[in-house]
């Protein structure tokens, strides 16, 4: 019986935990005077692994002008090669998704419009405009299906839109019509969407302001065309006042496929206003209906705000959440993973991204072997130039 319990425990661990042993960090780009890196896109999908290549995409500003850059590295190499992705006067909020075989899809905003292009280490495909007056794209890819979501100005408000994309060689194009994920008449802003694909269909979540405060809504579609009525993702606390204000805040939802059929969502949540933003998550085991919200960080992070939370999950059931907070005086990266039954691990500082200076704005992804690839922005002070760093957390369970 005891032996059976041990075997069960060993088998169960990889499906839940994300412990990793991090390598020494690499500079993707070094610090340069007057140059600032931003990792601030919808879903924080700034890093992806395709085949044996890792790609990182970010916004880089200098003199008040931003452009988008992508960096590639073979998993076994120690140096990234960089390519400029965007053109125009200014560009930002880029995301990347893996297409397999070392190929990637990039999407970003450029001069107020939404663009996309395929990419691989040696070259970029042609840039294609997907939408006008649009921003905050996110992407999902599964078994040859590619979907993009974004926030687009429609009838006076930003609305969440979805398109199926196809690739003809290196050229990206929209397959069929671009649709609203919410058919209700526009009433307020819909922002920062994220999307996930499962064999069951398409899930989309976003920030919605129709009730006079920011709520997170999610919807599901079997075919990616006809979506269910949106439901509230972040549980609403009891209203503190019938008189003042409309409700609590929430921000920057991320979605990822979890296991064979499920979805995990993660976001910043201000339901406890004394704690600033906390990190919350929810699981939809069947890919359509979310269970109870789960608090991700431990109590030590309770009296301060968490920021820039990022999510990684995979088809084997691994989940990891990383964020920054300054519980130790300056911003450090912290990591947590689900332990099952609604419980999460204690928040663990990422040792290579802790210590003096500011380590913030992380993004993460798993590779096929369960290794956790991590990027973040590092700077000496909040006013100093930044550098973009990368490290890989080797899975302890493979």
């Amino acid at each position: 019986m005891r032996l059976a319990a041990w075997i069960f425990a060993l088998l169960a661990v990889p499906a839940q935990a994300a412990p990793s042993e991090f390598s020494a960090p690499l500079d993707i780009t070094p610090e340069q005077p007057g140059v600032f890196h931003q990792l601030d896109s919808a879903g924080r999908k700034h890093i992806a692994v395709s085949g044996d290549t890792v790609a990182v995409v970010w916004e880089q500003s200098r003199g008040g002008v931003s452009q988008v850059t992508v960096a590639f590295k073979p998993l076994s190499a120690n140096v990234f090669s960089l390519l400029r992705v965007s053109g125009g006067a200014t560009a930002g909020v880029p995301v990347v998704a893996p297409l397999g075989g070392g190929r990637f899809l990039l999407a970003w905003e450029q001069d107020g419009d939404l663009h996309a292009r395929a990419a691989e280490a040696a070259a970029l495909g042609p840039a294609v405009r997907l939408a006008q007056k649009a921003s905050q794209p996110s992407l999902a890819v599964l078994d040859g299906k590619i979907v993009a979501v974004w926030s687009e100005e429609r009838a006076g408000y930003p609305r969440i839109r979805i398109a199926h994309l196809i690739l003809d060689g290196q050229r990206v194009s929209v397959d069929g019509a671009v649709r609203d994920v919410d058919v209700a008449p526009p009433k307020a802003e819909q922002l920062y969407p994220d999307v996930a694909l499962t064999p069951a269909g398409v899930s989309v979540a976003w920030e919605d302001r129709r009730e006079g405060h920011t709520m997170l809504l999610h919807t599901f579609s079997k075919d990616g065309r006809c979506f269910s009525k949106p439901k509230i993702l972040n549980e609403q606390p009891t209203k503190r006042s019938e008189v003042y204000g409309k409700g609590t805040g929430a921000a920057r939802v991320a979605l990822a496929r979890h296991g064979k059929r499920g979805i995990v969502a993660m976001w910043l949540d201000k339901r406890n206003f004394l704690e600033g933003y906390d990190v919350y998550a929810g699981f939809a085991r069947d890919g359509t209906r979310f269970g109870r919200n789960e608090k991700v960080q431990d109590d030590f992070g309770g009296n301060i705000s968490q920021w820039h939370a990022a999510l990684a999950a995979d088809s084997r059931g691994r989940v990891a959440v990383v964020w920054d907070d300054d519980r130790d005086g300056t911003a450090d990266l912290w990591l947590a993973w689900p332990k099952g039954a609604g419980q999460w691990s204690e928040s663990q500082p990422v040792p290579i991204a802790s210590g003096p200076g500011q380590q913030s704005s992380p993004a993460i992804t798993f590779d096929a072997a369960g290794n956790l690839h991590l990027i973040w922005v590092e700077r000496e002070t909040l006013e100093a130039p930044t550098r973009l760093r990368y490290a890989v957390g080797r899975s302890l369970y493979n």
Partner: protein
Amino acid sequence: MSGASKQGRFASLGTANDAFPLRRPASRKSPGRTSLCARSPLRGSPICRGFASLGTAIGTSLCRGFVGFWLAVALLALGAAPLARAEPPENYPFLSYDEGLKQARAQDKRIFLYFGRLGCGWCDKTNKESFSDPALRALYVTHYVLVYADAESGKRLTLPSGERITEMELGVRMKAFATPVFAWLEPDGKTIAKVAGVQTVKDFRDYDRFVHGGEYRAKDFKQFIAENP
């Protein structure tokens, strides 16, 4: 989990059955600074500082304990008038942060920065009960360049360094984790004073005396108010 076991966890990282080598680095920072078990979760919070800044004995003393704080919250929730949203108060010429910085430099004027959030109850209360005062409006419009930032917004702004960030990221930099947060800035954006939570007309007038009168150059706000009630 108790605070004691949490602290014990830090001492034994990487050796337990988590088999987790994420060892806490030799810390140069204060350990346990934010432990909920070590102190009231409210003491020192922006909300408490906001209450304390009301200058009332009741506000300060209420924040000394958890129960007292919630009593204060309940008191705040009572007896007020309806308002739909917490956005910038009406009829105030608020600018974005970067526009405000440009104007402040051009006019050599200090900045009054308001961090709000859509739906924020205490922003709403401050708007209705303080910013509705015509004399306060005249005072602040005359003395400051007014800047409003939405604490959840992805709207872009450019810092004097050339860095482009969102309004939400500005809140990260200014540690505006609860709303409202009010800050008084030099024309170059350097913070003079910052306070969180509901502020009365008197509070705003006190801060104006402290900032516009240049008193901040010689003393902190607490000392100033003690000497100039």
